[in-house]
């Protein structure tokens, strides 16, 4: 595929970058355009359903270097498109997990608060929490391979430690009371 012919076209003092909106959504194009407004003048044109054309003009450059600079800037724009599109996809992919972590953190906080605050949570939200917890359990079951039994439930360990501490304290108390 000849990228120069299909995606980048240099015209005198500007470069036209042709983008397929089915591959790169408009919000990705806005994000990339925004990072280019420091060094170029950006204009958006075209058809939102068929072909989006981004016009980039350099703010300052020597005329002898202009063509190379324009080509470079056009290619950088394409690279950034890919970068942002990938980021967006990853962000969407991890969105549920991120939300789960956040909601679990909030749920822990709620447990420490009075009952009246818990009563304020709607039934739908409680169902959401349950769904998320189930999802996390599934992910943990699917993804974590713990053949060496390295991962131990924190609560069990914590209970064990507490019991040890408790027995020490009991012994101490017993000793003191015996004295």
């Amino acid at each position: 595929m000849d990228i120069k012919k299909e995606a980048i076209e240099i015209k005198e003092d500007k470069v036209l970058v042709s983008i397929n909106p089915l591959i790169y959504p408009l919000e990705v194009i806005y994000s990339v355009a925004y990072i280019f407004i420091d060094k170029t003048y950006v204009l958006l044109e075209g058809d939102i359903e068929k072909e989006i054309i981004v016009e980039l003009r350099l703010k300052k450059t020597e005329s002898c270097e202009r063509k190379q600079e324009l080509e470079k800037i056009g290619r950088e724009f394409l690279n950034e498109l890919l970068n942002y599109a990938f980021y967006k996809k990853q962000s969407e992919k991890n969105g549920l997990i991120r939300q789960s972590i956040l909601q679990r953190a909030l749920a822990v906080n709620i447990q420490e608060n009075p009952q009246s605050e818990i009563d304020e949570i709607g039934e739908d939200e409680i169902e959401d929490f349950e769904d998320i917890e189930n999802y996390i359990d599934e992910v943990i079951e699917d993804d974590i391979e713990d053949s060496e039994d390295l991962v131990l439930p924190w609560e069990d360990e914590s209970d064990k430690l507490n019991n040890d501490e408790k027995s020490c304290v009991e012994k101490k108390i017993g000793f003191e009371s015996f004295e």
Partner: protein
Amino acid sequence: MGVLVDIEKNEIYISLNKEFYDIQAIKEAIMDFEEICDGELNEDLKNYNLTLKLKEQNDLCSIGYEFCNYVLGLMKNEYLI
């Protein structure tokens, strides 16, 4: 069409595609540029058509393109509008 300038009249004509540019951001940009130019906004089926009349002699092209960048910037930072 993009950006056109009329040096004699000291005016800039900007055409922005309705599918990509937000009317609120354009209005806000006109207000923010009012120290250096008076803006007039019209629209047709496809574009928002702006006429910017500069109050003083200046680099017309740069101001026109800076205006377009400014509109994009406002759209990115919608909370500024």
